[in-house]
């Protein structure tokens, strides 16, 4: 067993061997054969802190596993499980509604589950969420909006103690209410595909996000992804999936507050 903070490092499995990971509710195996890579995973009820086991031999897996085979002319010993972020915006619903009074700005921390990217020989062959999230719709109507994932959140402030599972990433969110009436945060849509992933200490982080609600009649609401690292010592592990200037979250945000 290898320490949890090394589970995304590059591996060089021998032919007929591979590695196994247990991350949150997900168990994942990557096995190297002569002309194929075999990826298998299953979801368990219990959640676990990330662990990795190497030199796992080929063995028959029962029907609780989902298996994919990826053919190569010949395989070379190079594989990695890379931490990544969601492929859709995640709409977090606070367990208790959070109110930002007029003129106030609040710094919050929102956690979202990691996605895992299986990379072999430098190419990504499979991607999986550590936790399967429900679909949800974020929009002003059923005709206009965005397909997202839904998640529950405790919506911690930066002053609350955070004990984060090792398979979730923290996003610093600054919510600024410049309007004349209180802003009730019942849902918080994080544009996760536009965020980078970082590692600082024992935790995964994402780029920081600022949500600005303007005064009545002024410019449109803004969702800003801060360009730098979220904490001073954070090291970037991955780029954003989408670098599009077009911001569907802001568009929906505007349509709600218009």
């Amino acid at each position: 067993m290898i320490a949890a903070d090394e589970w995304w490092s590059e591996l060089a499995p021998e032919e007929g061997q591979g590695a196994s990971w247990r991350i949150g509710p997900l168990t994942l195996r990557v096995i190297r054969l002569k002309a194929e890579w075999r990826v298998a995973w299953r979801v368990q009820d219990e959640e676990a802190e990330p662990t990795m086991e190497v030199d796992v031999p080929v063995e028959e897996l029962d029907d609780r596993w989902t298996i994919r085979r990826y053919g190569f002319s010949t395989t070379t010993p190079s594989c990695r499980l890379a931490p990544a972020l969601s492929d859709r915006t995640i709409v977090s619903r606070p367990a208790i509604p959070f109110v930002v009074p007029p003129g106030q700005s609040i710094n919050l921390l929102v956690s979202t589950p990691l996605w895992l990217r299986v990379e072999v020989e430098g190419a990504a062959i499979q991607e999986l969420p550590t936790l399967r999230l429900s679909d949800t719709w974020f929009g002003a109507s059923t005709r206009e909006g965005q397909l997202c994932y839904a998640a529950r959140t405790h919506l911690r402030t930066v002053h609350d103690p955070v004990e984060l599972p090792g398979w979730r990433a923290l996003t610093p969110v600054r919510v600024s209410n410049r309007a004349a009436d209180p802003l009730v945060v019942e849902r918080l849509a994080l544009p996760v595909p536009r965020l980078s992933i970082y590692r600082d200490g024992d935790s995964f982080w994402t780029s920081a996000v600022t949500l600005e609600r303007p005064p009545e009649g002024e410019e449109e609401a803004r969702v800003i992804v801060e360009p730098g690292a979220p904490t001073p010592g954070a090291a970037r592990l991955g780029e954003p999936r989408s670098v599009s200037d077009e911001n569907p979250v802001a568009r929906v945000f505007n349509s709600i507050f218009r």
Partner: protein
Amino acid sequence: MDAILNDIRAAIDAELLWSLAQALLILVVGYLLSRLVRARSAAVLQRLGLETYSGILVVTVSWLVFGLAIAAALQHLGFDLSVILGAAGVFSVAIGFASQTSFSNVISGLFLAMERSFNVGDVIKAGTITGEVLSVDLLSVKLRTFDNLFVRIPNEALVKGEITNLSRFPIRRADFVMTVPYGVDLDRVRDLLKALAEQEPLAMVEPPPVFQILSTSELGVQLQLSVWAARERYLDMRTATQIAIREALDAAGIAHPLPRRVMVNEAPMKD
């Protein structure tokens, strides 16, 4: 004298030949123009989001251009267009009667293009037919049904009838109707159904699932659970939720009610 007449005849023939050549040139230019319109309009219609209807629109416009070229060529040859149009009018009335349905379909196709109710690739329901739109043509719309049949629906039938576009909006709602026997705790059933909708990842959290009591009948109380899903995952969600409902109701001991009659005999019993 003969020489003069021959010269005149030659001059007339030359003039006629020259006119014929010019008329032919007009026709050729008109034909090339109609081909150009045909080639260019596909790109223009694509920019306008009308590529679905390009078949019918391109053919109509290119024939219109070529028709104008024919009219111009005839006028150049000295034909009186009003006479020709008059004769054509009588002729077209005869043709019109003979091909009334076809013209109706062409005109209906233009109306469909104006309304833009669906595009190629959309899944529509027209009458009893549900299928994916393969093409919108001059006379008809071609569909592929889910059991892989090719169906041709005349444009006129689509204009006259009701069309449901199942692909227009990104999310869809599935309604699950069930009947539970009298005496069952309906609050418990509601909590049960809402919980299973929350646990199904394909069922959307928002818009939230809706539980309602539809009616009462001799069988029991008719309930409905309405759940939203992404359009692409609608069928998967509907199947998964239907199974989950059945399993949850079975696990809770709530069986589908059977028809029941209570017979009351009010006649006095005889010893």
